[in-house]
């Protein structure tokens, strides 16, 4: 009976956060992989459920477990960003701000397929992507992110700022690549005909 009560309590405390945790995990892996992370996090949460003192802090507690699971799996993977690429994104962002266009991202975003911008979060450094996603996608306040990730408020501010700048730069770089690819395709087509 005691086990039943614990199980019921675990479900009622943790299940309301399942959707959000799956959405968060989807940045670290696709489909089944993201769900594996979440399932592993729930298994660990079950074994340490007695340590959760304040059920109002359940999301933060689950998030930290999920983050640990993802970080452990990631250790075996090579991280995708290199310094040269980040510098390229910074340069692209600076060009956008310097150009005499009132809203430099407007057209780029209008051309973007649904889901592509969230995918682009995978291309920028993890600490920046995390802060941007928690704020812009999941609606957390800066103070909440600082508590969740255990960083100072000023660091949240700079991570969100830099993360969005790199995302904007990435969109510009990718759009340029796409334009180049289409132009090459057109040239090849007209050369053949």
């Amino acid at each position, binding site marked *: 009976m005691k086990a039943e009560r614990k199980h019921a309590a675990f479900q009622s405390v943790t299940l309301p956060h399942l959707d959000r945790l799956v959405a968060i995990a989807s940045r670290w892996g696709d489909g089944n992989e*993201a769900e594996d992370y979440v399932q592993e996090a729930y298994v660990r949460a079950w074994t340490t459920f007695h340590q959760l003192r304040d059920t109002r802090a359940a999301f933060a507690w689950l998030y930290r477990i999920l983050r640990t699971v993802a970080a452990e799996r990631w250790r075996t993977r090579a991280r995708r960003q290199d310094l040269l690429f980040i510098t390229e994104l910074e340069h692209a962002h600076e060009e956008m701000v310097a150009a005499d266009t009132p809203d430099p991202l407007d057209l780029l975003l209008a051309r973007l397929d649904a889901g592509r911008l969230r995918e682009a979060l995978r291309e920028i450094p993890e600490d920046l992507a995390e802060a941007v996603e928690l704020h812009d*996608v999941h609606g957390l306040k800066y103070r909440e992110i600082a508590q969740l990730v255990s960083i100072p408020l000023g660091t949240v501010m700079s991570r*969100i700022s830099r993360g969005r700048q790199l995302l904007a730069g990435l969109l510009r770089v990718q759009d340029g690549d796409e334009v180049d690819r289409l132009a090459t395709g057109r040239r090849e087509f007209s050369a053949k005909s």
Partner: protein
Amino acid sequence: MGTHPTHLIAAYADGELPRGESDAVAVHLEGCGPCRRELALHQDVRAALGREPLPGPSPALRVRIARIGRAPLLREAPARGARRKAPRR
């Protein structure tokens, strides 16, 4: 605010700056095109990310999560008519 307050513009866009700093950034923005473009960039990325579709848990995951913590099922009794090992003589 003489130099560009680039590092504050994201927080300004998100309404996360204290009143004094927010007012100072607002004054700077009135006369600075690059900073207005920086502001537009932050607003655009935030709005676009907020519109992105989010994946949800599959029904199978919901089932697996619901099973966590349940005592493992006892081995099921063999179906009627199933062959049993003959006792050793």
